[in-house]
């Protein structure tokens, strides 16, 4: 091979510079990302993080979700909701989510009770949404195959195939699914599939003024959400069901159901 000394140095130099630049933005191999999330889906593209410390219970997320996804605003159904947990020093736990927190929490009246602030030991808000489980019981249970998981792990419902039997609604351990009052089919949170596939944030994440809801890219270790999940003490809801949920929570407590 007749390689000039000058050319050889050029190639070596540019490769080294290139490698240096690339290592600063290291993307994880498919397997590596799945390992961090404890997920077996190597094509997973999104992961959700809820920081309960930052949630103030304003309910802007619920309002935005309903308006974005055309969920009937005044019907008692919602794709996402915010729960309030108040634990008193006598061990009583009060948990409520009036109207799915569509109008926020504007009074200190958990479950309609008046409480003395001095009696509160713990009190906080927990936003809930579809966990886009890696092993979704709703998908497994659908007798007609109307609900399915996309390659990236988002669980969707085909409104033209759903017969409205309600098996999936019963099988979701998180109570995320409901019957759509207009279309008479099963309805659920899609993490705003139409937005995330265009590079936008889900409506609830977009509407949250306090960053309590965040979405991230699990294949990028420099993504703040992925970094948090990989390095902080996060928890998932109802791990014992083996559904492998993909919504991670900061600041969960045993009183959260």
């Amino acid at each position, binding site marked *: 091979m007749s390689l000039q000394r000058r050319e050889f140095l050029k190639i070596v130099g540019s490769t080294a510079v290139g490698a240096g630049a690339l290592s600063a933005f290291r993307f994880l191999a498919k397997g590596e990302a799945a390992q961090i999330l404890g997920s077996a889906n190597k094509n997973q593209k999104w992961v959700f993080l809820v920081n309960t410390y930052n949630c*103030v*219970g304003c309910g802007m997320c619920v309002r*935005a979700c309903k308006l974005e*996804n055309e969920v009937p605003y005044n019907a008692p159904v919602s794709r996402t909701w915010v729960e309030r947990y108040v634990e008193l020093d006598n061990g009583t736990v009060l948990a409520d989510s009036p109207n799915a927190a569509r109008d926020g929490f504007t009074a200190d009246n958990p479950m309609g009770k008046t409480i003395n602030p001095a009696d509160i030991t713990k009190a906080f808000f927990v936003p809930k949404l579809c966990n886009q489980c890696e092993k979704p019981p709703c998908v497994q249970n659908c007798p007609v195959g109307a609900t399915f998981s996309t390659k990236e792990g988002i669980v969707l419902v085909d409104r033209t195939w759903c017969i409205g039997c309600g098996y999936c609604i019963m099988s979701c351990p998180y109570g995320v699914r409901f019957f759509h009052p207009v279309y008479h089919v099963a309805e659920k949170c899609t993490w705003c*599939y139409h937005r995330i596939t265009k590079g936008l944030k889900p409506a609830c994440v*977009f*509407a949250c003024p306090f960053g309590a809801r965040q979405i991230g890219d699990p294949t990028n270790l420099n993504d703040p959400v992925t970094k948090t999940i990989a390095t902080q003490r996060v928890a998932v809801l109802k791990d014992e069901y083996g559904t492998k949920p993909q919504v991670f929570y900061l600041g969960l407590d045993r009183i959260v159901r």
Partner: protein
Amino acid sequence: MSHVWRPLYVVAGIVAAILIIRHFVVPPQFGVWERGYMYGWHNKAAETWWANFRVGYKGRDYCKDCHPGHYKQIMASPHAIIQCEDCHGPAINHPDNPPKLQIIKSRLLCLRCHTKLPYPTSLRSQLPGFLDPNQHNPGIECVSCHNPHSPVLGGN
């Protein structure tokens, strides 16, 4: 032996008929990817349908060119963390459709954050607000004194 073969032919015929019917009835968009039939089968048509759903919330950048005054004012205020569409509703195709967005003047909109709730370990307890909002000018809309785009009285 023909009494054995005849029912077998019938069964084979039924199986073939089912496979032929299946070929025509199952839409071509139905498929299975690597995770197998339990979780891995999918429906391309429905995926596309959901991906093409209309986007309602457009973000501040959609608002700022036509409403530069409001944009600059709120971006300089503590309310800069709140999106325009949080209070005004989704822009969708504004100004074509809808031609006008909501202007909510209810106290309840403000009280979503500004009722002080004494909840430890929640950011809510650290927001400025009133333990009993009825003590602060009851019955009067917040916006009659406070500009939501620049809420601090005496501010810009």
